[in-house]
């Protein structure tokens, strides 16, 4: 039907066409927006959240997610009780307004204003001041500041803020996903396109190397790397990237072989274009459609692989974290502190969902005939 379609005023490439089709795909558009949102939140979020990702809050281990600040009145009450008891006084009553706690006490002996030290000694309070001591010295009123902390996602076993940790972990997971995905794509495209385009014996040898690498058990390979080089972040890229480019290379090689037989490649040969020129101007640009699709499906694969490695304890090291690490810790605490599993899992799955939707949308947009 090409003849019936009116030719638009400006030249429009296949990419522009695909882009227009992609924009009509609601799921893909929403997913892209969501992914962008997650990326921005993970990058900027940790700078804005009240608690640092590695600070340990000893008083608040495994506190449940809550929108109201910690400490809660139930946590303040015993703390005050403790402090007052240590000062051999009796608690009459206390009230909290904002971050200020007012405590009323009585005692059988006259009260010195140094008793505020007992209050200060508690981790929870600071700057305690005796505002009013009765004339007989047997009753007094003190005020102290309570440091209020917000743990919207709760805290983990050691008392670290889960919100900040989830966002930090998101940085790591997305970075690994993108970088290792990118590494895999670059190696895969170059290797696969070369093998497919040159063909013959070179192709045979190059693809047998891929077969050999395929036959290495992945986990064994990673454990070996970790044993030799110790655990570190860069190693993760290497390990994941080194395994995933194999798929890419195979896909690209197949594509390159079919593109090589296209008449426009023959035409370029007849023009005297060099092999490198053909590879650069004809083979690779025409490969990029399937590569773009595969890349969006590769990123979630990398994130899952990293999660899996982290789950086994071979991944990112504390205090750094990734979604996989958090989920693995959450899984251990599932009965008593289910939020430790819930939040990272929601972030991970929704991100993977979005990536898969984008991949699907891209495939439809780039290959409209295959729908």
């Amino acid at each position, binding site marked *: 039907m*090409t003849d019936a*379609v009116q030719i638009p005023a400006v030249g429009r490439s296949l990419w522009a066409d695909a882009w227009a089709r992609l924009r009509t795909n609601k799921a893909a558009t929403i997913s892209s927006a969501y992914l962008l949102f997650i990326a921005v939140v993970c990058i900027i979020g940790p700078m804005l959240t009240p608690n640092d990702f590695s600070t340990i809050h000893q008083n608040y281990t495994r506190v449940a997610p809550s929108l109201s600040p910690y400490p809660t009145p139930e946590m303040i009450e015993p703390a005050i009780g403790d402090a007052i008891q240590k000062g051999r006084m009796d608690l009459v009553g206390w009230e909290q307004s904002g971050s200020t706690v007012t405590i009323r006490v009585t005692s059988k002996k006259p009260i010195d204003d140094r008793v505020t030290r007992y209050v200060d000694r508690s981790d929870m309070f600071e700057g305690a001041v005796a505002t009013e001591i009765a004339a007989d010295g047997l009753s007094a009123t003190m005020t102290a500041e309570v440091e209020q902390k917000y743990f919207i996602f709760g805290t983990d076993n050691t008392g670290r803020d889960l919100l900040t940790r989830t966002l930090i972990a998101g940085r790591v997971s997305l970075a690994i996903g993108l970088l290792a995905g990118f590494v895999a794509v670059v190696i895969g495209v170059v290797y696969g396109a070369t093998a497919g385009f040159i063909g013959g014996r070179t192709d*045979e040898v190059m693809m047998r190397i891929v077969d050999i690498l395929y036959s290495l058990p992945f986990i064994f390979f990673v454990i070996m790397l970790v044993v030799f080089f110790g655990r570190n972040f860069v190693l993760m890229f290497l390990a994941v990237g080194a395994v995933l480019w194999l798929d890419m290379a195979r896909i690209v090689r197949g594509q390159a072989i079919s593109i090589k037989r296209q008449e426009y490649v*023959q035409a370029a040969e007849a023009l005297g274009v*060099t092999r490198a020129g053909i590879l650069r101007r004809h083979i690779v*640009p025409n490969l990029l459609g399937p590569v773009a699709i595969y890349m969006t499906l590769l990123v979630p694969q990398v994130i899952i692989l990293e999660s899996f490695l982290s789950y086994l304890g071979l991944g990112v090291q504390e205090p750094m974290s990734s979604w996989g690490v958090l989920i693995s810790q959450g899984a251990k605490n599932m009965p008593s502190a289910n939020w430790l599993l819930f939040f990272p899992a929601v972030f991970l799955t929704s991100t993977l969902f979005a990536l898969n939707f984008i991949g699907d949308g891209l495939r439809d947009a780039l290959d409209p005939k295959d729908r």
Partner: protein
Amino acid sequence: MQDAILTLKDVRVTFDTIDGTVDAVKGVSLHVNAGETLAIVGESGSGKSQMMMAAMGLLTSNGRATGVADYRGTNLIGLPKAQLNTIRGAKITMIFQEPMTSLDPLYSIGSQLVEPIRRHQKLGHKAAYARALEMLALVKIPEPEDRMTCYPHELSGGQRQRVMIAMALANDPDILIADEPTTALDVTIQAEILDLMAGLQARLGMAMVFITHDLNVVRRIAQRVCVMRKGEVVETGFTADIFANPQHEYTRALIDAEPSGRKDPVSVKAPVVLDARKINVTFTLGGGFLGRPKRDLRAVDGLSLSLQQGQTIGIVGESGSGKSTLARAVLRLLPSTGAISFEGRDIAALTREAMRPLRRHLQIVMQDPFGSLSPRMTAGQIVTEGLLVHEPGISARERDARAARALEEVQLDPALRNRYPHEFSGGQRQRIAIARAIILKPRLVVLDEPTSALDRQVQKQIVDLLRDLQTANGLSYLFISHDLAVVRAMSDHIIVMKDGRMVEQGTPDAVLDNPREAYTKALMAAAFAT
């Protein structure tokens, strides 16, 4: 309107695309009488296929059809699928252009034939098998019983098309819709299939709707013709009337589109541009790591030719006769043995590197205007790619100007040079391919079926363009085609090839009017029979 068996009334087909809706068929009304052959003629994009697809409920998911397609009192458009399936495939059947892809490669011919017979006629396996066998015999497939167990890839293109016809006829249809059933076939086979279909139609008495762009076919097979253009019927009438007295100017243009004229032979003193002696091309099949034992296939066998400046040698033969292989071998795009000299210089032994500077003088234009242009490059980039190789020094601006000039030379609007191939029509793309070849000012251009994929009218324009370019630039052409009418109009020397060998050669009139070899005779009979 005696006995109209299928009546289309105000059929409209629209497609939703990202550019908005496209009207492919704009309110067509026509009828098919029982037992007649109606040809629907029009260039590609005229909506002739989409109209019948709409009636059969076979539009793609973004297409919508409105109107009435009345078959014996049932409106087929908008009919639920279950009801539609009792009619299509049984009472109205279809055969398609591409015999390679219309059969499922995973099932044997037999099972593909038996299955629809069992479904529609409610026969047992034995009876259905017998019927399938009968059908294969009817379409004159040799040794039908052996063929039943064959898979599609084991049959030739013509045989596959016969199987498709057998499938279409197995349930005694009232109407057979044939959508360009012979376009993908060689001329000799095309003639056989047309004879077969005409014979079957006369014997079985069904109506036939023949969709085609080839007026020769129409003249041979149809009683009535319906000419379509841009989604509308421009003219309907009896075949003889239409050909004798076309009313609409478009119909006249279609009839006149047959390439005509002759090329004057070049003087014997004209310098020889290309001289090839005893060219052999051998392909090795099989082999490889753990592969089957190697087998040699000789695609070109001891062929010699000598091309003078300004001369056009037409190479004729069916697919598989080695004509494209020969052309690629003399351009050194394929390894071959034999002596090739270009302007007196031996190029047979040159390396790829040494060959590169010579490439600008030896160009090629290929058959498929959809496959020969890279879809990711603009027309301008495609046209100037050769300049990057042969004149690397010139600036981007100069290249752009050269692209504009080359496009003008092939009569394309230079303002279109920033568009991508998919935005052009088939004829325009072929012009871009020609511009890419001539921008380097070559001495020799191989034209590998440059007009076969195009409509007749466009074909004529391209032939005229190629002629003009030849006179203007003193080009020599190697013109490969299976279309004898075009070859006759273009060349001053003809080589007929079969199975890699030269069967006959001489001036067009000598070869085509007085064929000596049996093969050339058959080719001629098939191409010019009316």
